[in-house]
């Protein structure tokens, strides 16, 4: 464990005791120079000869039937080369995930949210494309809309999908509903748990929809040829996903599509799906020219992303010794226009940081006339933690226990059952709690007038399928090709793991993200999985290579391969009769010993390690304006093993600040007529540098036994605790507990005023 307070460039190591030579060091990332020089190519940076610009027309209504679309005026406008509407796309199946994807990309008979794509134009210039798109005449028949959970769940609510029947309810409903699914997890007997409790706290919480807020709008360039093949340059979290999803929407065979991953300008889950690629592909096919589509920021807010708002009711019982005996939770999450699994995930997370003998958790996934939810960093967990950890904070105060000690007292360990079924593997929650308890921050005296809050957070992490190819070059360098788009420095981590395996200087390794035709299938960069899962494929390929290298040395030495060891990047003759052969010596001679050296690994990565984070903040609250200022912040997170500690810290800090934004300011604001009122960074205000202090980091390392270097994955869990941390700190500072986010100045001021009167 290490605490980083000095500049990160001092080389403080996240993994001091590991004994690794490369893993745990902080080399300059391989793709860094292009990025500081302004040369890195993101999807919007590509221009092709003859390229057209696409523009998508979007619905101004939250819910309406499309009566007719007249494109004749648009088609006659200058520069226009192609126009498409929903009618140009294959028919969608009546229900299911495929329909949801197809109808999100472009509306068919019905628009389900303001911003829903309706038609598109390709023209010679941006302005011609925009003008022509606006000249498309769409006749709508307006339908009643619902914008919030309570309205959408009401018995008389306008129903979005007349073939959507609530799953998880017996007997199966006969009437369609906006409640897509009900999820229940239960154990023991909650009534017995409440009977055993000395105190019972019951509260209701709400959070608002927020956007991932990546700075790069969605962008792609698609070039379709006369043989029906398409090359797609796209900014995404998974180019194999772009290939398969585009093929699905267009009804094409995937072999017609090649996807080249551009650099990605942030995703945070929001680029795990597609919006524009099939539209550009169809426009390109019609026009016979490459087509570029770049979303405007307004369209990004109106038509992509949001993470759901939620309503959560908690009832928690505890004994006077701080033992939490039981929890009952009711969660409802927005899904957007099509059903998702937000509430199910919330149910799985809500009490996961606690050991409970009795629990009953019930969740509802609710569709409404808002854009379709997409993953956002530990999806659903932040709102769930906000509810549970706010209540836990009240319990600690009521029983007079330190809030960290109370969490340690109720902390699950390996072998305990998770709320959702399986037993916990090796986890590091206790270590994170102890790290915060022992931190300089938590041990420091709280400055006068400030409040301090703590909270913990959980996220699963996932494995899925990665592929990697490692080629050894004739000069003794290596190229590591993987299928994982690099969102936050994962290429450097791939190179570090390869360096450790091969015993090769990390600077002699070039990590590359390969397109869909040069590397094996790889799932989306999501679930904190790239360094964990794709790292496993890199390690497996490197271990294959080490076997090959030993065989080459044995051949060179005319000895048994068992006499050859691979030590620090060289083949060493066990009996000591030969001088060691370096990797470069073997690759330089490879043509004479059997040909070039390369290895590929594709696998299903099992055993992703659950992630926990514990955080503490000090805040001050302006009594006149209600503004909350974060004065000090420290986060501890179990990384398993930190492969590149600087980028582990970066993930931790970035997650924390997104969570602070969610807690303090960010929210989707809809007018009654169903339009988003703040679709821009001026009115949807994400945290800026002057809002924040340094984010102190404490990397906890409880290695994941399923990974060769102990990696857990660090991308997501950091966003979970800040919501309750902020609420708890504000409560400590003001004596007023606010259970509706965001804790924006008007809301805080209102709560302070109400408490006074």
């Amino acid at each position: 464990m290490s605490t980083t307070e000095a500049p990160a460039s001092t080389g403080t190591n996240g993994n001091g005791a590991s004994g690794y030579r490369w893993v745990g060091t902080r080399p300059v990332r391989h793709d860094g120079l292009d990025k500081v020089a302004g040369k890195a190519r993101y999807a919007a940076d590509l221009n092709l000869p003859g390229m057209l610009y696409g523009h998508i027309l979007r619905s101004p209504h939250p819910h309406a039937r499309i009566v007719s679309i007249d494109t004749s005026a648009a088609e006659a406008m200058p520069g226009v080369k192609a126009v498409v509407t929903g009618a140009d796309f294959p028919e969608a199946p009546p229900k299911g995930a495929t329909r949801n994807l197809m109808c999100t990309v472009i509306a068919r008979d019905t628009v389900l949210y303001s911003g829903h794509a309706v038609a598109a134009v390709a023209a010679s210039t941006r302005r011609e494309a925009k003008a022509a798109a606006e000249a498309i005449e769409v006749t709508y028949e307006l339908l009643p809309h619902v914008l919030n959970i309570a309205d959408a769940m009401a018995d008389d609510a306008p129903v979005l999908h007349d073939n959507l029947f609530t799953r998880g309810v017996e007997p199966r409903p006969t009437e369609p509903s906006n409640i897509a699914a009900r999820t229940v997890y239960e154990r023991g007997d909650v009534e017995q748990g409440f009977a055993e409790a000395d105190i019972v706290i019951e509260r209701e919480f709400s959070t608002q929809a927020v956007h991932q807020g990546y700075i790069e709008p969605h962008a792609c360039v698609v070039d379709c040829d006369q043989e029906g093949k398409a090359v797609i340059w796209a900014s995404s979290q998974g180019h194999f996903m772009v290939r398969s999803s585009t093929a699905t929407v267009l009804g094409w065979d995937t072999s017609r599509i090649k996807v080249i991953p551009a650099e990605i300008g942030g995703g945070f889950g929001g680029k795990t799906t597609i919006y524009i690629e099939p539209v550009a592909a169809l426009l390109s096919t019609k026009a016979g020219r490459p087509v570029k589509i770049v979303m405007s920021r307004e369209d990004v807010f109106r038509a992509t992303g949001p993470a759901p708002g939620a309503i959560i009711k908690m009832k928690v019982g505890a004994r006077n010794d701080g033992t939490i005996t039981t929890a009952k939770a009711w969660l409802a999450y927005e899904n957007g226009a099509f059903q998702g699994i937000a509430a199910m995930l919330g149910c799985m997370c809500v009490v996961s940081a606690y050991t409970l003998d009795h629990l009953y958790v019930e969740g509802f996934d609710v569709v409404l006339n808002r854009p379709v939810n997409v993953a956002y960093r530990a999806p659903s967990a932040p709102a769930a933690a906000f509810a549970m950890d706010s209540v836990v904070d009240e319990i600690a105060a009521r029983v007079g226990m330190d809030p960290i000690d109370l969490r340690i007292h109720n902390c699950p360990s390996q072998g305990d059952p998770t709320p959702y079924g399986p037993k916990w593997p090796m986890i590091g929650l206790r270590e994170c709690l102890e790290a915060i308890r022992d931190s300089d921050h938590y041990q420091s005296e709280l400055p006068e007038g400030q409040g301090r809050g703590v909270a913990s957070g959980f996220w699963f992490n996932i494995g899925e399928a990665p592929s990697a190819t490692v080629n050894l070059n004739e000069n003794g360098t290596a190229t590591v090709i993987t299928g994982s788009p690099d969102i936050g420095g994962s290429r450097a981590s791939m190179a570090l793991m390869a360096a450790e395996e091969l015993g090769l200087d990390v600077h002699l390794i070039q990590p590359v993200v390969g397109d869909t035709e040069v590397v094996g299938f790889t799932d989306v960069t999501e679930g904190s999985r790239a360094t964990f899962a794709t790292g496993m494929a890199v390690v497996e390929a490197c271990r294959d290579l080490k076997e090959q290298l030993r065989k080459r040395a044995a051949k060179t030495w005319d000895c048994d391969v068992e006499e050859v060891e691979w030590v620090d990047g060289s083949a060493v003759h066990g009996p000591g009769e030969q001088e060691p052969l370096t990797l470069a010596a073997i690759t330089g001679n490879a043509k004479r010993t059997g040909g070039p050296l390369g290895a590929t690994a594709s696998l299903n990565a099992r055993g992703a390690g659950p992630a926990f984070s514990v955080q503490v903040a000090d805040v001050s609250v302006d009594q006149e304006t209600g503004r909350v200022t974060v004065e000090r912040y420290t986060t501890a997170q179990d990384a398993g093993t930190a492969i590149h500690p600087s980028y582990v810290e970066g993930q931790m800090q970035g997650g924390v600040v997104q969570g602070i934004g969610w807690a303090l300011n960010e929210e989707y604001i809809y007018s009654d007529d169903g339009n988003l009122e703040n679709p821009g960074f001026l009115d949807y205000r994400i945290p800026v540098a002057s809002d924040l202090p340094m984010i102190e980091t404490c990397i906890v390392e409880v290695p994941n036994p399923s990974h060769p270097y102990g990696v857990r994955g660090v991308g997501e869990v950091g966003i979970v605790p800040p919501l309750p941390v902020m609420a708890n700190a504000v409560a400590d500072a003001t004596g007023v507990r606010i259970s509706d986010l965001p804790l924006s100045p008007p809301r805080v001021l209102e709560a302070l005023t109400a408490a006074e009167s």
Partner: protein
Amino acid sequence: MSRTHVNCEVNGDAVDFLTEDGESLLNALRDELGLIGAKEGCGTGDCGACSIIMNGRLQCSCLIFAPEADGAAITTCEGLASADELHPLQQCFLEGAALQCGICTPGFLVAAKALLDENPDPTETEVRYALAGNLCRCTGYDKIVRSVLEAAVQIRTPA
């Protein structure tokens, strides 16, 4: 549509290009001059990804009409490094891991240069306020601020 002929100096080079009157300087830099370092994150001057220094002032190039650049001296991210050496800000960003996805990085570098040109010894608070017009969603700003402070030290005390 008629196009305007614009002459200006970009990163020390005399350049010229044709542009439509309503076009942004950002699009002209990217499409006419191939300088893709400046990015469009919002198009409304809220994110700073398109930051340039024009006639000594930090500007959002998405808010400037391209013809307004006639006669101007412009510095973009591409103009920070010399042929054989990165600008200290670039070097410190690399060593300090001050970038993750990198989309905001050119804008931050340009904004930080504009700050250090005016104030070679800023406090942490001054750095934070000077960079408050640049949005980064990946880093939480911690490593960016540290790297700018470190670069300021290096510029003040060359090796």
